[in-house]
């Protein structure tokens, strides 16, 4: 990315500070961990969280309604712990839903927003401005931070979504013959210098899934799981993965279920 160096140049202003400035060599060695250390438990994703919290409780949309009637799986309005138990089957829509498709459903159902309008800006404008949907995701995910992943497999629909997700994970197609497995089925592999998680093992899937969504320092943006999958398929040379589509949810089900038992550490701070 052209502006990578600027995005990585973390702005620090030390005034009246007892804090010693970092040496240039140290900062170059691992700028990301230096940045994390400075933030000391804070995360720029928090900027999206406070925005999302307000969006959850404010009456909005054509129906001037809040989202507190929205059932994320643990009952209407229950946000805490919901993300660690998604995707799941919702009888009222008759489908397995991930957090993101569920939020869209609720915004349509309760607030009267148009689905197409929400989806048009699902990842903001693509590079600079983030969407309300992303802010809501940040809020709901953060409310599960520290909880153990416990994605249910109680219904036949959830079981089908899991095996469908697994089949899609290994599906080779496109001009380059790539599947998810091409990059994500062995340990200690890299593309260029970027480490690739092995998503076929519990440890690999746990480490990866529990650190998404994340604040991407190189982009200065909060990125969701649907964004992660969409951009993987773009690099696989496949067409555009539809937001909240059956394939997106099935893959999320496969990855989330494989991460069960691990403590959710998202939103994380990533490269």
């Amino acid at each position, binding site marked *: 990315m052209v502006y990578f160096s600027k995005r990585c140049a973390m702005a620090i202003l030390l005034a009246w500070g007892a804090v010693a400035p970092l040496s240039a060599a140290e900062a170059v060695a691992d700028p990301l961990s230096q940045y994390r250390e400075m933030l000391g438990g804070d995360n720029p994703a928090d900027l999206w969280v406070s925005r999302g919290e307000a969006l959850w409780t404010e009456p909005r949309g054509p129906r001037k309604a809040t989202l507190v009637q929205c059932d994320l799986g643990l009952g209407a309005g229950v946000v805490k712990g919901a993300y660690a138990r998604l995707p799941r089957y919702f009888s009222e829509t008759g489908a397995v839903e991930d957090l993101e498709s569920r939020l869209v459903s609720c915004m349509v159902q309760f607030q009267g927003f148009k689905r197409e309008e929400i989806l048009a800006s699902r990842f903001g404008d693509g590079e600079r401005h983030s969407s309300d949907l992303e802010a809501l995701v940040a809020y709901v995910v953060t409310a599960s931070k520290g909880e153990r992943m416990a994605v249910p497999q109680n219904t036949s629909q959830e079981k089908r979504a899991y095996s469908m997700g697994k089949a899609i994970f290994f599906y*080779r*197609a496109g001009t380059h*013959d790539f599947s998810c497995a091409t990059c994500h089925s062995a340990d200690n592999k890299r593309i260029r210098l*970027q480490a690739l998680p092995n998503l076929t093992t519990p440890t690999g899937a746990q480490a990866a899934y529990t650190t998404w969504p994340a604040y991407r320092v190189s982009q200065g943006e909060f990125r969701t799981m649907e964004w992660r999958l969409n951009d993987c398929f*773009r690099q696989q*040379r*496949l*067409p*555009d993965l*539809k937001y909240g589509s059956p394939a997106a949810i099935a893959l999320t089900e496969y990855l989330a279920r494989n991460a069960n038992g691990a403590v959710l550490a998202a939103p994380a701070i990533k490269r």
Partner: protein
Amino acid sequence: MHSRRHPIRNAILVIVGFVALAGEVGAADLVAPSVQKTLEASFSAKGQATLARLAQDKTQGLCTHYATSPIPAKVVTEITAMGFATIKYPADGEYLGDWQRGEQIAQSGLGKQSSDDVEKPAGGNCYACHELTKAEIAHGNLGPSLYHYGKLHGDNDVVKKYTWGKIYNAEAFTACSSMPRFGHKGILTAAQMKDLMSLLFDPRSPVNQ
């Protein structure tokens, strides 16, 4: 023609069906129709990435089918033979181009993505998976190191022919390789592949320093 089939004829049709399944397997039979249907419903065409890219050719179908189990020897032979049959060697018999252009092609990750401009030449993105030179430390490790490739393999037509084939269609040599089929799938042009060949073989190329 009777409107209803005779029971025995029905039975024969069923048997023929089974024989067809046990024999030659087409790509379409390998992946459950539900998977195909789910994929078709879940993607939309964008830029040059049309929905046609979701459909598998036979090699992709077989490699998906055997992704989590050992590939039977017979299938390995089938895939490599299919791959081999596709390789087109340079019409002029010349394998080499310009290593400096080859280095640029090896560095570029553009090409065939929905976000890429079709007018711009695609890259090979070799560094994403391979070490090639000592100068480029940002290389991946999904594929083996190709540093000193020409120096180690020698300057002869047998090894050049093999290497050309490997770039053209890696499936000819390793069934279900992770390496894209650069020539067969039209990712790179013959001229670009010649430039990559030079990057690997030219004694002046940083690969052989």
